[in-house]
C-alpha cells in the first residue's frame, strides 16, 4: 500500500501568540496513500493541512515533501494542491477557465488546454459544463470543479479541507465513494481533513486522530476501531461502550475484567491494549451474551 514516507512531518510545533495550535507532531504519509486528519474543530487539523500547503509556517520542526524541506517554499511553488472548504471557485470565471486557472505558466496551446479541461470534466463526471458560470453551480458541482482545478496540475499531493462538509447527507455519501474511486484512479497522495469519523473510516488508508494540537494515534481504520490506544481515541471512533472495571488475570491465557454492571467478562489477552487500564470499551457487536449466564444473571437480579 505505502512506499517510503512521501511527506514527513518532524517534531512540528505551531504557536499563534501564546496559543499552541500544533503540539510536537511527527508522522509520515506514504505515496499514494489516502490519509485523513480526524478531530473535533480546533484540534489543529486544518492548521496542519495549511502548513502542508504553505499558508502557515512552522514555529518549530520541519516538513519534508518528496524528500525536500519545505520551510522556504512559498505556496505557489509547492508540488501540492488544495481543495478548500469553501471550494473558492473564482466567481468571475466560467467552469473551464476555473479548471484551467493553474495552467497559465505551462504556456500550452488553446487546443491542448481545452483537451486537458475536457479530460478533467470527464473525470469529475461533468462533461459539457465548461461554459457554465460559477454562480450557476450547485454545491456538489462546485466541489467537483475544485477537485478538477487542483488535479489538472497533476500535484504530488492533494490536500482536502473538509471538502464534503457543506453537502447534504445523501450527496456526501455519494461523493465519498466517488472521491475514493478518484483517488484510486489518479493514484496520488490525498491528505484529507475531516471531523466526521465515519467519513474518515470509510475513505482512508490511514487516519491520524488529533486533539488539542496533538496526534493521539495514527493507524488504519481497522486498527483504530479495534485497538484504540486511549479512551479519547475510542470515544471518537464509532459508538463505543465504556465500562469501568479492573483487569483480573486467572492463569496464563485467561483474563477477565471485573465490572460493576456486567460482572466478570472473560477476554482474550491480545485484545487488551493496556492491561493496567481501568476502562473497558467495546464496539457494538463485539460482545455476546452467552445464554446460560445471562439467564443466571437475570435470575439473580430478580
Amino acid at each position, binding site marked *: 500500500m505505502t512506499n517510503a514516507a512521501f511527506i514527513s512531518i518532524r517534531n512540528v510545533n505551531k504557536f499563534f501568540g501564546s496559543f499552541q495550535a500544533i503540539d510536537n507532531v511527527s508522522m509520515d504519509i506514504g505515496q499514494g496513500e489516502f490519509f485523513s486528519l480526524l478531530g473535533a474543530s480546533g484540534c489543529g487539523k486544518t492548521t496542519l493541512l495549511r502548513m502542508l500547503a504553505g499558508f502557515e509556517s512552522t514555529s518549530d520542526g520541519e516538513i519534508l515533501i518528496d524528500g525536500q524541506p519545505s520551510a522556504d517554499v512559498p*505556496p*505557489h511553488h509547492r508540488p501540492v494542491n*488544495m481543495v*478548500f472548504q469553501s471550494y*473558492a471557485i*473564482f466567481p468571475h470565471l466560467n467552469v473551464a477557465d476555473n479548471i484551467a*486557472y493553474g495552467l*497559465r505558466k505551462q504556456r500550452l496551446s488553446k487546443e491542448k488546454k481545452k483537451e486537458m479541461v475536457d479530460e478533467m470534466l470527464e473525470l469529475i463526471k461533468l462533461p459539457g459544463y465548461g461554459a457554465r458560470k460559477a454562480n450557476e453551480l450547485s454545491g456538489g458541482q462546485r466541489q467537483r470543479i475544485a477537485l478538477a*482545478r487542483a488535479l489538472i*496540475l497533476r500535484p504530488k499531493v492533494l490536500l482536502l479541507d473538509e471538502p464534503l462538509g457543506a453537502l447534504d447527507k445523501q450527496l456526501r455519501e455519494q461523493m465519498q465513494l466517488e472521491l475514493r474511486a478518484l483517488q484510486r484512479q489518479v493514484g496520488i497522495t490525498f491528505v484529507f481533513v475531516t471531523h466526521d469519523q465515519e467519513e474518515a473510516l470509510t475513505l482512508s488508508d490511514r487516519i491520524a486522530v488529533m486533539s488539542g494540537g496533538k496526534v493521539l494515534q495514527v493507524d488504519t481504520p481497522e486498527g483504530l476501531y479495534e485497538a484504540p490506544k486511549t479512551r479519547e481515541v475510542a470515544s471518537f471512533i464509532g459508538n463505543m461502550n465504556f465500562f469501568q472495571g479492573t483487569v483480573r488475570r486467572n492463569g496464563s491465557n485467561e483474563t477477565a475484567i471485573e465490572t460493576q454492571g456486567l460482572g466478570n467478562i472473560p477476554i482474550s489477552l491480545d485484545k487488551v491494549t493496556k492491561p493496567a487500564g481501568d476502562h473497558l470499551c467495546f464496539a457494538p457487536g463485539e460482545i455476546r451474551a452467552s445464554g446460560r449466564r445471562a439467564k443466571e444473571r437475570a435470575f439473580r437480579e430478580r
Partner: protein
Amino acid sequence: MSSRTDPGTYIKRPNRALQIYAVIFLIVLYVPVLFIPLFSINDAIHVKFPIEGVTLRWYGELWARDAVWTALFNSVKVGLVVAVISTILGTVAARAITRYRLPGKSALVTFIMMPLVIPGIIFGVALLVLMSRMGVPLSLYTVGLGHLIVCLPFAVATLLPRFEGFDPSMEEASADLGENGWWTFWRVTFPMVFPGVVASLLLTFTNSFDEFIMAFFLTGTDPTLPMYIWGQLRFPQEFPSVLALSSLILFISFILVFIAQRVGRMGLDD
C-alpha cells in the same frame, strides 16, 4: 402559525407612517434643488414667480462662453487625476485593512474616514498655510491635493465592503494553483473588486468635480467649474446662466452617482 408571530411578515408588513416620513424626507431634501433647473429655463433675468416663459437661451449662452469651457476642462482634469489616484490609494488601503492583522486597525479606519466630518474650511486653511509656508504656488495641483484628502474616504468607503465580502481563500486558491502575489492580484483580486473600483472612480470624480471649499482656498489662476460659478454670482445679469450651468452639473452628478451605486453593488446582492 399566525401572521402576527411570523417574522417574515413582521418585517415586510407595509408601514404607512414610515412611507409618509420617507416622502417628506425626499421633498425637504430635493424640492429646493428642483428650483434650480426650473429657473434655468425661465425667460427672465430675475428669479421670481411666475415663470415668464420657457427658453433654452441661457444654455446657449453658456455654450458660447470660452471661460466656461476652460473651467470645465480644469475641473475634468483635476477630477480624473484625483479619481485615479484616490482609487488606487483606496484599493491598497482597503486591501491592507481587510487582509492583514494590523495593530490599531479601527483607529486607522477612523482616521481615514475623518475628512468626511472635519469641516472642509479647516483642511482648506491648513493646506493653504502649508503651501504658502513651503512656497508652493497655488495651482490646479494644489486643488488636486486638497481634493485627494476629501475623496480618499469615499474611495475607501466604497472599496472596503467589496474586500470584506471577499473570501480570503480565493487568493489562497490562486497561490495554491501556482500564481504569485502580482498575478493573483490581476487574475483574481482585481476582477473581483472591479465593480467597486468603477464605483469609486465615479464617486471620487463627482466629488472632486463638485467640490468648492478646498478649491476656494487652493485655486491659483485657473478656476475649477464651481469656482467659476462663484465668481459669476457677483453679476446679477449672469445669474440665469449660473443656474443653467448648475442644472447641468446636478444632472451629470446624479447620473454618475446613480451608476456608481448600481455598479458598486454588482455581485454583492446575490
